[in-house]
């Protein structure tokens, strides 16, 4: 592992600012490592030569006041990037080249970063193992044959495998936090309305949020402060006072009240997860936090609620992929035939499954029983958090009910796949911020994560808790570079 690719984002930024490294050196190092990492299948589209040219250009006249000066960065292929193919992991967008840029990526380029390429993900972000991507599985750098989690699997693998210093993913039901947990990295899902959804291929509009995925909490804080902006182009973007996360970051969390929800102790949870949680509680105490038992009584209903709300919205959001304006089109006898063949051939099995679920729960006669019911339960779940936050500042839970599993292990059992998101989904339903930090290993040496859930708009609070705990945990990812030939 070269010196450069081993560094954290913060260190690379400092080295470029201090002129110890040029953008070209840094970019070249990540390009070289990415070139040697094809085995991981982390990229869908590479833009390496452009990246090096941009780095050279940056070095000619470097603006070192920027937050991400000349930093190369690969991003999840769900963000539309101007003139760079954007597929959302789907065949249906195989040849789609946007003429526009998402707000989140634009914010990143505005701070001086350089696009390396587009990272693999589950098709339309629907999946928990990156196995639904039309562009193939992604390998977890932790071990050969292991899923990196999903849907931001390519992003997690790329950060964990040091193919990019940092990245962004999107999180609808856990798609940042679960892969972060599976790959020993840090992933933050911001408050709903914190990061603009403009230019992000939509999965479920009321749940989708972009967020940073990083090596450590400090890097994560820096990228969050770059990507979170109020955006008039997104009607659900919220205009609130945003923190300078990286500057305000502190390990002093003395007296902070951290809630432990008893309902997260789910039936059949492996002992190593329970142990990890206990360890986490211990670390939090050591940091000076006060631990308080709380109850989130409707937790058990979160996953069924999510599997109504998200597919319902998705079934409508994905109606635009009809072979008319862009993307794949199958030959058809007439318009309807064309639609049906295009969507049948263009979408993969999981996406079709979710469209069908969504269509069903919205269809006449079922709306009240499913969709309306789910919206009501969603209210109850949010109420649970509101109630809990009267007593605590943050909530600590495991990120996932297990460590990373083998490729193919759960592919044909949708329900067991869905259960991966059991700890992450309630957060999206309530629109809260949450961060997953690596906190230990299971018996096989695979990483396990802890999740810290915050109050709405209190990203700084959970970043601080994570920052303090990270110090105590002192996690070391066991990566052997097995894939590098």
């Amino acid at each position, binding site marked *: 592992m070269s010196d450069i690719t081993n560094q954290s984002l913060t260190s690379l930024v400092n080295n470029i600012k201090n002129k110890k490294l040029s953008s070209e050196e840094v970019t070249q190092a990540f390009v070289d490592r990415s070139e040697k990492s094809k085995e991981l299948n982390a990229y869908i589209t590479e833009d390496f030569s452009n990246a090096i040219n941009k780095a050279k250009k940056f070095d000619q006249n470097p603006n070192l006041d920027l937050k991400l000066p000349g930093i190369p960065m690969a991003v999840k292929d769900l963000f539309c990037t101007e003139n760079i193919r954007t597929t959302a992991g789907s065949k249906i967008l195989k040849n789609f080249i946007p003429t526009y840029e998402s707000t989140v990526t634009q914010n990143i380029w505005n701070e001086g970063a350089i696009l390396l390429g587009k990272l693999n993900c589950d098709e339309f972000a629907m999946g928990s193992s990156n196995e639904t991507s039309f562009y193939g599985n992604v390998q977890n750098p932790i071990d050969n044959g292991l899923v990196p989690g999903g849907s931001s699997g390519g992003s997690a693998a790329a950060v964990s495998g040091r193919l990019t210093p940092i990245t962004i993913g999107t999180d609808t039901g856990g798609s940042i936090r679960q892969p972060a947990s599976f790959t020993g990295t840090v992933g933050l899902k911001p408050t709903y309305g914190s990061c603009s959804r403009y230019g992000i291929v939509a999965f479920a509009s009321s749940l989708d949020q972009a967020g940073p995925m990083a090596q450590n909490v400090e890097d994560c804080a820096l990228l969050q402060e770059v990507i979170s902006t109020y955006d*008039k182009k997104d009607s659900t973007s919220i205009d609130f006072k945003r923190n300078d996360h990286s500057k305000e970051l502190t390990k002093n969390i003395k007296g902070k009240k951290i809630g432990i929800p008893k309902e997260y102790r789910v039936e059949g949870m492996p002992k190593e997860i329970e142990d990890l949680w206990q360890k986490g509680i211990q670390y939090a105490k050591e940091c000076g936090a006060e631990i308080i038992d709380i109850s989130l009584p409707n937790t058990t209903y979160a996953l069924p609620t999510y599997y109504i709300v998200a597919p319902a919205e998705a079934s409508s959001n994905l109606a*635009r992929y009809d072979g008319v304006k862009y993307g794949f089109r199958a030959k058809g006898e007439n318009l309807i035939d064309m639609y049906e063949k295009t969507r049948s051939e263009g979408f993969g099995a999981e996406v079709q499954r979710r469209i069908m679920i969504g269509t069903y729960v*919205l269809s006449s006669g079922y709306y009240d029983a499913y969709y309306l019911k789910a919206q009501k339960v969603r209210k109850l779940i949010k109420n649970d958090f509101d109630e809990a936050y009267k007593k605590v500042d943050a909530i600590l839970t495991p990120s996932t009910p297990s460590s990373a599993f083998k490729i193919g292990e759960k592919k044909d059992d949708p329900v067991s796949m869905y259960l991966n998101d059991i700890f992450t989904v309630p957060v999206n339903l309530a629109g809260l911020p949450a961060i997953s930090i690596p906190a230990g290993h299971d018996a096989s040496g695979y990483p396990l994560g802890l999740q810290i859930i915050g109050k709405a708009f209190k990203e700084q609070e959970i970043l601080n808790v994570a920052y303090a705990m990270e110090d105590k945990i002192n996690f070391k990812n066991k990566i052997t570079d097995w894939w590098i030939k």
Partner: protein
Amino acid sequence: MTKDKSEYLIERHNNVYEVVIGLEVHAQVTSNSKLFSSSSTKFGAEPNTQVSLVDAAFPGMLPVINEFCVKQAIKTGIGLKAKINKRSVFDRKNYFYADLPQGYQISQFKYPIVGEGTVILDMPEGQKEVGIERLHLEQDAGKSIHDMDPQNTLVDLNRSGVALMEIVSKPDLRTPDEVSAYIKKLRSIMRYLGTCDGNMQEGSLRADVNISVRLKDSKELGTRCEIKNVNSIKFMQMAIDYEANRQVDLIEEGKSIDQETRLFDTKKNETRSMRSKEDAHDYRYFPDPDLLPLEVTDEFINELKADIPELPDDKKKRFIDEFKVSPYEATILVSDIETAKYFEEVVAKMGKNQDIKLAVNWITGELFAVLNNKNLEISQSPISAKNLAKLVNLIKNGTISGKIAKTIFELMIDGDKDPQTIVEEKGLKQESDPKALEALIDKIIDDNREKAIEYKNGKEKLFGFFVGQAMKVSGGKANPQLINEILKKKL
């Protein structure tokens, strides 16, 4: 078939049926940009030149609502004397069609921006109140063109995303004439408000017509059929006539009516089932998660209320009170805001010694005839209100006769000429000098001695002959009133 003018009933084998009609009018909101995107709404642009990434539903594109369209909908609601809902919600109506890029239409389903209201129709037999069920905002679709390419359908998205108001009436209409009056009244109100130009040719106003029939005096509603997208009042009336009779025939044959969507074929003058669309009729409405609830304050509504101009019903009342025009004339004058404006301008320009009755006659008579002939709107009138006022004044003060006025009117059309100038140039001033007229009449009586004697002997209709002669000899300039007086005296 029709019993009397006010009733529209269908008779079959001693059964008398009544027709129940409700309308869903789609009115294009007058605005510069679209409901959820900043592309232009101008009519008649080159295909696909007024399409943004949002309108074409590119991945990741999001709707942002146009404040002006919201105001326009609320103003229209106020014009319909309707309840304004301070909180309304945008829903997605999901269906696939080539000219619907998102695969759904953003509309308002459960919580419309405007609730119940009323529209008053001025029918020959009196006023009739029609209930408004609701008004909601929604997006228009694009246009599919089926006849330009033999193998393919071409899609133009210029209209995609343009704001529409869907105004749903209660099933209060009973006759094709009421339907016509209702559409005209709605259009009139919206044009007063400036919220919709009401141009049916450009598709700014379309309607879906819901029709059912029932035995007269029955209280229950029959099964209704919806005739989609009828774009002229004439076609609406034709479609209603065809459809009502079709339904009555079915009932008389003992068959049932299917609740369905039908299409009006203007060439064959019949309605046809659109059954092919039926299976895809589950719209799966749900609140659009890209948009939050639309909330407006009392203050916002009150500001709009303060901005509402005098509407046709109030204007009519004022015209009757202030100008003493008949209710019938007032209805005509206020039906279109431009006519009302023209009329009021004529009245203002006539000054103190005005003859409003005469002005109304000239506007609704000669002027309307010219506009009709030339297919012009009153706003494009070749004769300005100022010059028409002058013309009326010239008649009123006896400078010209009504007959000469007609000649002058014809001359005014070309270039909006000042009638005073025409009178002077052509020497058309009325001869009102009694001495000159006496001399003229003396000469006529002299030349027609025998006829004068016949008149004196009782052949009174010869009076007209002498008037005619006087006008002829004077070249139409003789003041007819004076001629009458003098003739009576002399003969």
